[in-house]
């Protein structure tokens, strides 16, 4: 089942084109990583998919249908999006923030409570439950926001799509690992995932496919082990790297020279 399909999609919300003629397809249960230098269009692509910036030309299909054909509430039950920055500046408790993720669903207080518990375990936020969001550290806030979007699509059957914009920037190593495992287990349940991420070793271990973006277009797209080459890194990121096989896992390892 193709959850998300882009055909020659372009976007130019402020005149100059941000994204040019992108084509992508994402199956249920697949994880797609977006990488590229600053300003390459990773966040813009996520915003385009999420509907925050409009499509100027091309096609964007969810489950074979364009956005306008989906009722707003139904889309909110299938799609969850975590932007890079959170604006929340009001003293909600952590539990109240995560519960907002269940707003589009009418599964009832008890079921929502169960999902809340599981999403908190998946993000290690159980101990923060009664704390005030405004009093948390940056990494803690990021985990709480992750728990919110996880809970939004926790029990969405086939066809869910999770979009994460740099979800691990403020996290320590063990929490990075925990979040990646949680994303993997959501994908294993059939949820498609798109995530923008700078750490290429992290994305190589997680994503089925990686799209490398450069000035608004896709420079390379495919399995990390196939597309990660020293030449690609020279051309796109302008750095010299060594690419080796990970000693324990079947993934490439990018080491700066």
């Amino acid at each position, binding site marked *: 089942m193709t959850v998300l399909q882009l055909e020659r999609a372009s976007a130019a919300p402020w005149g100059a084109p941000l994204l040019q003629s992108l084509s992508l397809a994402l199956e249920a249960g697949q994880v797609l990583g977006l990488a590229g230098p600053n300003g390459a269009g990773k966040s813009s692509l996520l915003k385009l998919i*999420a*509907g*925050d910036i409009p499509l100027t030309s091309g096609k964007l299909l969810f489950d074979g249908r364009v956005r306008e054909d989906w009722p*707003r*509430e139904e*889309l*909110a*039950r299938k*799609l*969850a*999006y975590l*932007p890079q920055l*959170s*604006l*929340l*500046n*009001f*003293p*909600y*408790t*952590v*539990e*109240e*923030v995560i519960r*907002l*993720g269940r*707003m*589009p669903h009418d599964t009832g207080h008890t079921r929502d409570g169960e999902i809340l518990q599981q999403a908190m375990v998946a993000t290690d936020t159980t101990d923060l*439950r*009664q*704390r*005030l*969001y*405004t*009093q948390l550290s940056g990494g803690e806030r990021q985990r709480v926001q992750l728990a919110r979007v996880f809970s*939004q699509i926790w029990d969405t059957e086939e066809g869910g799509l999770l979009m994460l914009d740099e979800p691990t920037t403020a996290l320590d190593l063990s929490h990075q690992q925990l979040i990646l495992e949680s994303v993997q287990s959501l994908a294993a349940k059939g949820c498609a995932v798109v995530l923008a991420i700078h750490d290429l070793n992290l994305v190589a271990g997680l994503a089925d496919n990686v799209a490398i973006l450069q000035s608004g277009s896709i420079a390379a797209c495919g399995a990390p082990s196939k597309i990660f080459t020293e030449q690609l890194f020279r051309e796109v990121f302008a750095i010299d790297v060594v690419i080796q096989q990970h000693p324990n896992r079947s993934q490439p390892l990018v080491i700066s020279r």
Partner: protein
Amino acid sequence: MQASRHVRAWTIKQAGYHRRRRSRLLLASLAIALPLCILLGLANGAVSLHTKEIFSGISNTLTGSAQDQAALIVGQIRLPRVLLAALMGAILGMSGAAMQGLFRNPLADPSLIGVTAGASLGAALVIVLGGSLLQGYTALTAVSIGAFAGGAVAVVFVYRLATSSSGTSVATMLLAGIAITALAGALGSLLEFYADNAMLRRISLWKMGGMDGANYPRLLVATVVGSVLLLTLPRYSSALNALLLGESEARHLGVNVDSAKVALITWVAVGVGTSVALVGTIAFVGLVVPHIVRMLVGPDHKVLLPASALAGAILLVVADTLSRVVMAPTELPVGIITAIVGVPFFISLLRQRHHYGMQS
């Protein structure tokens, strides 16, 4: 170190575990306190009345039977006035809470969208242009209509300035509101410059706000607008809860952000416009009441909106009662009292704001 850890532990405990219980407790105590304050407002004034006289006065007014002095005071003067104060306070409190949520800014105030300044200009315009033609009851009505029209024009103007093809920007709206407020203020000053002494006195008294124009026709207008507003705004409490995360986040949670924005701005403009038209500008209630309630029970609008309405009603009823009692038989403008009563309470809360997790 020990002390700060203690405070932190206290905060954590207070914030989460007790929030739901505190919400219920606050709503219940406000709901009990409001009728008591109304009773207090009916009993006190230039002439003090007993509870028995108040109730017989109310029942005499309702049945239209024998009118003694107490019945006249209660029925004709105090009852419409106290109820008007309660309704205006409720409208201002709930509107303030809704605006602070919509603008995601605890410092937002219902007057931010330009309605108060526009209404003041409209009122001043009627007072100056009408001059000595306007007397007594018609003058009051004409000034009210001028104020409401001025407020409506200002809000429409601010809204149009902030709306482009990509939707309405709340941030632009805030700035446009400040600009229109400044412009209306300048035009108002220009009018005052050309006004004579009698007009100046009327403009400045009107600006201070007061319930002294209360009568049953005005109470009827306030009741209609107030009950629609107080029933409509809470329907947006989920949307407001999600909007605190950000507009884009709210949209992804299935909220129809654009229609919620238009509805909230329209209702707040109607509510505040009506309140300015009926009782003049009363600052402070719309800004500080929701702030205080949020400090006590957190930002959940399902509690915040009704609690702000109740607390606003209580504050204005008490302030109006004080304005009649403190220097009786002279009445003080109620806006002065709301500030004198509310500010010390607000400052004492601000000094312990870290207990409530407020950062701004």
